């Protein structure tokens, strides 16, 4: 390990280096703030950087260390949050004009856990408005760029957080994943993203989009760091009634990391694979072969109701969103537009004027699928399909230990390419929404780079396991990670990290 500069190290390595006295927390913080300063104007990963408070916090931690205190699992580790996470006294705008200037009156429980573990918050990253989008283009503020090619999308909705980790502005960042909002940008940016089992991490303080789907989900550039973050954030939180009554996650620590003998990997065979770009399939295939080489057994698996996942997801998520976003009406939070002076006038003017197009589209969809006379045909049926999909997975996991598929059907696409075509955008969630609907853990891991006319672009391989099988998914990810002959590729524009 090179200790020349604290940049590009994993969270684990940073913490060890700090505790060993190789770097101070201040040095680590300054180095990462400098990395943000260098690239953020081009990439727009961060919506807001809180340099001063980060530096103050770093000095506090250094002082604590000098007193012999402080050895939290994330001690001195710089982290970034998505703009839909509440930190008391800080703006939480969800990438929306309607919450511009909204100062959260409390701190999310998962943020508190990060802080208690010794992390240093550097700032808030950009996102699609209310986490609705797959490209970052729906933010009311800035649109993050893919660091591998700035003409391309970084994915979404946790776009900025993915870019921040991909360019090593932070070793870890928190996003939120409702239907793929962490996994897909992780794939597009060439890093790791884990959506845990629904209920693993408390949602208290995560601004809701689709309440039955939302999960706080970390990004990292090593599998080990995902493990670390999950250990810190998981566990029962009594402020979230959907949080699972379980102790914190404990990683699997096999004696022989690279031995996968007896492990059955289901490979998703489906007509939808026809829509997958060949260069993506090639990269994923290569990873599967590595797994096989380590002793895993590959099997073809079918999920009979998979093709209903996208419509089902867009019914459930928009229904919940239409209700969750009802509160933004100008009366209590954020922006108010007076309108004609009446109460309903104010509601209409505020919502009309301050929500973006995609948010309005989904509120309309969600309102429609819940309205009297239609609710049974849409929302009711979607709930039943959701049950069928859960059963499909249950049946599949009778036969295999994990399911593998591409994370996204393509590599990162051109900014603007799908902005006007909502349906095409929705279809790019093809592989990520099923696990969300079933509440299952899903991990996107870097599966190498393509080389074609658009240049070298990352591909993501998704692993889905039964509920609470994060340990198994991470063990596979670690095995693949350690079997690579070279280090994880870093975007070419990060010339300072080699």
């Amino acid at each position, binding site marked *: 390990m090179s200790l020349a500069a604290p940049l590009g190290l994993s969270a684990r390595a940073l913490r060890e280096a700090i505790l060993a006295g190789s770097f101070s927390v201040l040095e680590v913080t300054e180095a990462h703030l400098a990395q943000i300063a260098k690239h953020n104007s081009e990439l727009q990963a961060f919506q807001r950087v809180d340099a001063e408070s980060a530096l103050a916090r770093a000095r506090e931690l250094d002082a604590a260390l000098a007193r012999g205190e402080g050895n939290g699992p994330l001690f001195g580790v710089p982290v970034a949050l998505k703009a839909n996470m*509440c930190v008391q006294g800080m703006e939480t705008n969800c990438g929306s004009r309607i919450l511009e200037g909204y100062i*959260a009156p409390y701190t999310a429980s998962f943020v508190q856990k990060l802080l208690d573990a010794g992390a240093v918050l550097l700032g808030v990253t950009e996102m699609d408005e209310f986490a609705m989008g797959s490209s970052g283009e729906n933010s009311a503020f800035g649109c993050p760029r893919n660091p591998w090619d700035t003409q391309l999308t970084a994915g979404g909705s946790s776009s900025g957080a993915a870019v921040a980790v991909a360019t090593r502005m932070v070793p870890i960042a928190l996003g939120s994943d409702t239907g793929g909002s962490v996994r897909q940008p992780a794939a597009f940016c060439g890093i790791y993203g884990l959506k845990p089992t629904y209920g693993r991490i408390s949602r208290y*303080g995560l601004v*809701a989009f689709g309440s039955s789907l939302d999960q706080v989900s970390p990004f990292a550039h090593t599998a080990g760091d995902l493990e670390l973050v999950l250990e810190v954030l998981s566990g029962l939180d009594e402020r*979230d*009634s*959907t949080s699972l009554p379980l102790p914190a996650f404990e990683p699997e620590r096999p004696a022989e990391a690279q031995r996968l003998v007896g492990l059955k990997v289901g490979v998703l065979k489906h007509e939808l694979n026809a829509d997958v770009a060949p260069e993506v399939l090639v990269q994923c295939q290569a990873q599967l072969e590595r797994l096989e080489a380590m002793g895993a057994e590959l099997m073809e698996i079918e999920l009979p109701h998979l093709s209903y996942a996208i419509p089902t997801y867009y019914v459930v998520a928009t229904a*919940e969103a239409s209700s969750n976003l*009802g509160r933004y*009406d100008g009366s209590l939070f954020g922006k108010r537009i007076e309108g004609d002076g009446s109460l309903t006038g104010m509601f209409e003017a505020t919502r009309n004027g301050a929500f973006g197009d995609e948010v309005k589209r989904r509120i309309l969809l969600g309102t429609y699928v819940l309205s009297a006379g239609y609710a049974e045909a849409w929302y009711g049926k979607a709930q039943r399909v959701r049950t069928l999909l859960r059963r499909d997975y249950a049946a599949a996991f009778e036969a295999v230990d994990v399911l593998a598929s591409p994370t996204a059907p393509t590599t990162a696409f051109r900014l603007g390419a799908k902005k006007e075509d909502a349906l095409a955008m929705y279809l790019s969630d093809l592989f990520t929404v099923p696990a969300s609907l079933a509440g299952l853990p899903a991990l996107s891991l870097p599966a190498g780079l393509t080389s074609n006319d658009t240049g070298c672009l990352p591909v993501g391989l998704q692993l889905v396991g039964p509920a609470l099988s994060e340990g198994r998914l991470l063990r596979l990810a670690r095995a693949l990670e350690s079997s690579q002959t070279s280090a994880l590729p870093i975007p070419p524009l990060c010339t300072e990290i080699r």
Partner: protein
Amino acid sequence: MSTSSNSGLYREGNEWVSESSGKRWVAVIGLEVHAQLNTRTKLFCACEYRFGAQPNSQICPVCTGQPGSLPVLNGEALELAIRAGLALEGTIAERSKFDRKNYFYCDIPKNYQITQYDEPYCRGGGISLESGRRVRLNRIHIEEDAGKSTHTSGNFTLVDLNRAGVPLIESVTEADMDNAEDAVAYVTALREILVYVGASSADMEKGELRCDVNISVHPVGEAWRTKIEIKNLNSFGHIAGSIEHEIPRQIAAWETGDPERYPVQETRLFDAQLGITRSMRKKEGEADYRYFPEPDLPPITAPYNRVEELRSLLPELPAARRARYMTSLGLSAYDAGVLTASHDVADFFEACARLSKEPKEAANWISNEVLRAISGDEFDAQNIDELPIKPFDLSELIGLLREGVVHSNGARQILREMMKSGKAAGALLLELGLQQVQDEGSLKAWCAQALQQKPEVAQQVREGKEKAVGALMGLVMQSSKGKANPQRVRELLLQMIAESDVS
């Protein structure tokens, strides 16, 4: 308008007869009653709620619907709700769930209310009224209250969210009533039961019990007609007043024969000043609340064992207690009613009756003296528990009275003192010098003195006006400072007058 058309109607029992058409009409009434559960904190957060606190002083991220906040069910609210459901003879669902009712208004911070839509925690049950009528309950569900909005002049709306998130149960009756008296009797009984089992304080003045009336009228023997809802009635007077206005109003509207003027499905409010109902909004079919299951709360489970445990802990309900007081203790319906109006009073009475072995005496003293004292403002107490007197003290006093140690006026005086100081009856008897004089010598001397003072009264008695002896007794009581045993004095006076007659 309503007065002139009303004058063409008269009531015969539960039917209304139109003088012009000769038609006989009946009303159909169902009630929806919201009762505030008596919890320490709100339904989904840890905020305490006190009526009348400074606006927006009892709020937190959850009950103000801050982005990212989540509800957590208050277990105490569920237990109180179950107690109410059991006391109302309902069936507690082993599994029920919460739903979101979506609508836009400024006093509902999330723009949805968490309530129970198609799987309420309690179904069925009912209350048998003293009139003999049974009012069945369709369901009871748990929901959160909204805040309070006040529209000011100057086109502002002020919102107080203290009440937002306060736990309510809404009980919905079948349309089993047809007149205002039964409606009032039902709400009275419901209120009594909720208070009794400790589920709600049900203070209507504080808005802890609010009633919506659903009402329609139709000619006897015909099909039911358009239902109208009168919302937010918060006193018995308003419930009665609104029904008494609404029945003739609807009948008159039908009797016009003009479909344009027929009652339409709508929500009305009661104007207490004018004693009339007024249209609030017309309903365009059912309002679309886009109900769906609340994803932030897992389904509620009420395990059978726990429900049975709660059932076994229920106190005897007022109606059963009243019946027992009348049949086995021989109390009048009136006394039984007074004593069972509150749980504390009934307990006090029962203890007192047991200790003194004189239930009727105990009942008299409690209803005539103790409860009267509480209802006035001489004593700094709102209910019997706040008085220093204990059942044992009152039973001791009843014993003294029985043994003739003190007469009833003296006992009354002792009781007042006991209610102030909590001292024992025996001690007060001596302290106030109220023990009756039993010794014959003193009594005879006072009687002789009275006969001397008013010989003309003795004469009247001799002439057969025995009642006149009262004037003499008054004199004796005066000279004895009230301590003479009046019964014995009377006997002595009559005896002495009779003896003096010989001369």
